[in-house]
């Protein structure tokens, strides 16, 4: 909600700067951003009372002297004769109507009404609607203006299940379904209560006689309707959060005052209905409880002074909650008021000492499995449970984000297959993944299973020992036999037949319930050391890789480490990774053969052949100058000298 600084400060005697008002609002819990001289407020949902100039000023009265200069019409009014019936008094316990006729529609606005449109840069609509919008901004109470000449007949308020097409004053046609609180004129819906009025009875630029409706609607009857019908309205935002149930008469009298500043009123009459009493909430004064909750030690006098400034009334031994504060019911609510006024950051810390609790068996087996898999080059992934295919027992989501995510997965492996294919499409040729997750199914009740799923495909590893070995069932079985000889894992080949992929590597996977894992895993001694600091992430490139292999024949073995260090430590922005993929010592020939794989990738554009050649030239030229090392097959070695 946008509120102009000037509209607040003109009521504050101390004339604080915008920064001072901003600090005060933050202390009170009213988040906002400042755009020029406008506060863009974001109120918590329990503070519907603050959705106006007057509401904010009531809170700011904690820190400043507030002088409201808002005159209201105080004279006695004729009683309006209106054919109105309320069939849902629980939903609308208070409602007032004002009928008013003016001589001439004004051509321009004055005072606060004029400032409202100028300061907030708003478009005008018509005289009465403009006043209604301004009043909502000033008081927090929405009103609805009907063109009185279009209101002949019986007016009814009712929560009804009537299915009907309703055209709003914004020319939107909506199909009313299920229960809606509405106003009906001659049995036709003319207003979706608390949300938006109808086109047929709305005011126009020529309207001189208006019927203004000002009501309190129970938030429960309004909540969800604006989203259901896709109508964003200031009124619904306020009614959903709760308006002051005792302000309707005052707001209409304020409306009369503003109208009278702009036009001669020919006649007016008003009626107020109070279908249900709204007794004030009274909370016993208990300063000890307040001090206990907040952890402070203030006097009762100080406490009551804080509350008085916020509009609470002290009556005998009770605190009477003002009607606009529908969020205050308990001692804890009052404690929050006190804490806000003091300032959360000004409350002194009190030492906390939580008694020690035992956590002996916390996921020990699960964690040992995770570390074992990390030691062997597996990466942990996390997947959302939403899937498209209804497998037997799968739980159906009633309101999925889309129809492709309508069910909850009953296994983890299918998610890992998707992860594997995703990485294959990114040219990864050694993929080893695992996930531990709860999965849920339905069979006469919800069944919860905690599962470990493992998947692998391609090379066993990216080093000279594992590079030429392919992941297969034997690899997995041997790996797990080492730590869990008694456990039979059902590692199996996952067919690529129905997968969209051109890669031929065998996919091996296995899924097992965690509670089936024997406790012998607990004796496993992990090697991996988790990072002790938080690693700063480097954005990854989605552009394709290019790889080059470089093989050397070494006769002077003392140069081995020199070569290895040079290539593995070679720095270039385009060189993403380098590793030894081949190593062979030929005793007969007294020769070592070593192969390096270099992977290139740019973060800016698809890498070009010439960029790679330039880097390779630097490496080859350097290594070619090392005595006792050569690159078999390099035809023009002289060029690099």
């Amino acid at each position, binding site marked *: 909600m946008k509120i102009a600084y000037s509209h607040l400060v003109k009521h504050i005697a101390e004339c604080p700067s915008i920064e001072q008002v901003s600090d005060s609002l933050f202390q009170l*819990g009213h988040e906002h951003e400042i755009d020029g001289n406008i506060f863009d407020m974001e109120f918590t949902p329990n503070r519907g009372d603050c959705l106006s100039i007057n509401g904010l000023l009531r809170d700011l009265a904690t820190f400043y002297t507030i002088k409201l200069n808002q005159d209201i019409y105080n004279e006695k009014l004729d009683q309006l004769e209106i054919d109105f019936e309320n069939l849902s008094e629980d939903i609308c316990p208070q409602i007032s109507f004002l009928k008013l006729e003016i001589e001439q529609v004004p051509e321009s606005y004055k005072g606060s009404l004029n400032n409202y449109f100028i300061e907030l840069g708003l478009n005008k609509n018509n005289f009465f609607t403009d006043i209604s919008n301004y009043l909502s901004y000033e008081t927090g109470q929405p009103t609805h203006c009907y063109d009185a000449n279009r209101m002949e007949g019986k007016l009814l308020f009712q929560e009804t299940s009537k299915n009907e097409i309703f055209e709003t004053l914004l020319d939107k046609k909506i199909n009313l379904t299920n229960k809606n609180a509405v106003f009906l004129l001659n049995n036709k819906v003319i207003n979706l209560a608390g949300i938006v009025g109808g086109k047929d009875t709305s005011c126009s630029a020529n309207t001189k006689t208006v019927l203004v409706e000002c009501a309190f609607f129970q938030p429960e009857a309004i909540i969800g309707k604006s989203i259901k019908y896709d109508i964003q309205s200031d009124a619904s935002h306020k009614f959903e959060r709760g308006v002051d149930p005792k302000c309707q008469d005052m707001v209409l009298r304020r409306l009369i005052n503003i109208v009278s500043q702009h036009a001669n009123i020919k006649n007016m009459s008003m009626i107020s209905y109070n279908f249900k009493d709204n007794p004030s909430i009274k909370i016993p004064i208990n300063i000890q409880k307040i001090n206990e*909750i*907040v952890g*402070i030690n203030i006097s009762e006098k100080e406490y009551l002074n804080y509350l008085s400034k916020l509009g609470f009334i002290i009556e005998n031994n009770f605190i009477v909650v003002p009607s606009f504060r529908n969020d205050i019911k308990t001692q804890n609510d009052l404690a929050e008021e006190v804490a806000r006024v003091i300032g959360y950051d000004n409350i002194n810390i009190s030492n906390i000492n*939580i008694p020690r609790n035992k956590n002996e068996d916390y996921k020990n087996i699960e964690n040992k499995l995770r570390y074992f898999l990390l030691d062997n080059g597996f*990466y942990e992934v996390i997947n959302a449970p939403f899937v498209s295919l209804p497998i037997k027992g799968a739980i159906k989501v*009633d309101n999925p984000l889309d129809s492709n995510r309508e069910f909850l997965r009953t296994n983890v492996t299918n998610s890992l297959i998707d992860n594997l294919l995703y990485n294959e499409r990114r040219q990864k040729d050694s993929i080893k993944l695992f996930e531990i997750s709860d999965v*849920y199914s339905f069979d006469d009740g919800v069944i919860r299973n905690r599962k470990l799923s493992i998947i692998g495909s391609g090379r066993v590893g990216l080093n000279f020992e594992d590079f030429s070995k392919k992941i297969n069932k034997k690899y997995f079985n041997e790996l797990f036999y080492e730590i869990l000889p008694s456990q039979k894992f059902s590692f199996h080949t996952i067919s690529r037949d129905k997968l969209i992929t051109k890669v031929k590597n065998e996919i091996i996977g296995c899924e097992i319930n965690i509670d089936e894992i024997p406790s012998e895993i607990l004796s496993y001694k992990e090697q991996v050391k988790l990072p002790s600091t938080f690693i700063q992430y480097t954005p990854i490139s989605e552009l394709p890789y290019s790889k080059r292999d470089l093989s050397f024949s070494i006769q002077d073995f003392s140069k081995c480490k020199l070569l290895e260090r040079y290539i593995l430590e070679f720095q270039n922005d385009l060189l993403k990774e380098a590793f030894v993929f081949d190593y062979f010592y030929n005793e007969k020939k007294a020769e070592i053969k070593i192969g390096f794989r270099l992977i290139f990738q740019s973060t800016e554009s698809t890498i070009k052949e010439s960029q790679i050649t330039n880097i390779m030239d630097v490496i080859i030229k350097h290594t070619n100058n090392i005595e006792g090392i050569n690159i078999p097959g390099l035809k023009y070695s002289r060029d690099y000298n």
Partner: protein
Amino acid sequence: MPEDKHILPPELFKDRGSLHPINHMKDSIMDLLISFGFEIVDGPEIETEEFNFDMLNIKKSHPARQMHDTFYVENKSNLLRTHTSPVQIRGMLEKKPPLAFISGGKVYRKDDDATHLPMFHQVEGIYVDEHVSFAQLKDLIYKIIYSLFGEEVELRFRPSYFPFTEPSAEVDILSKEGKWLEILGCGIVNPVVLENCSIDSNNFSGLAFGLGIERIAMLKHGVTDIREFYKSNLDFLRQFK
């Protein structure tokens, strides 16, 4: 192997895998809280409305209960928990105060954009004892934030609103760029919640807090797009070891 001392094979770099950064962050926070004395409690991701909302003082009319915010399953018989708080409710129903629980795991809300995902992770804690105060809650929060971000970090408490705590607060830290960033929500447990769990709110009070793991992981690792965590991209995962 040859006798020549130079004939040593190259260093064998065995690729180690990595924990998922979200799980690693969650475990780190849980370990920290365990060191403060908290006990871990576990609960299901599929919950009832009673445990996810009613017991936590979230009224029938609260917007969070609408179909556009919460995933309901099997003809609204259950729902995907929107926070880990119901686990603490289950814990409070089983044990008597003093009690100090933490729960962590996946939670679900009907969001899907650059900054929100339909599945994310939370760690929440609750401590119920005699005379637990907001001033003590502040002490605990300072300890948590200082452990995560260092003692030089500047933080502030802002009044906020959660149906299950009163008073409620949100805590921000000041980033290096001078911007306040929301880190966690906390408050004094609403007596209604204690009474719902058959805990006498005249004799006991409690504090509660909750952290979004993704948000903290993004700040700590410098990840700017939350979706990166769930692409399972090896180039991404390899950075966290």
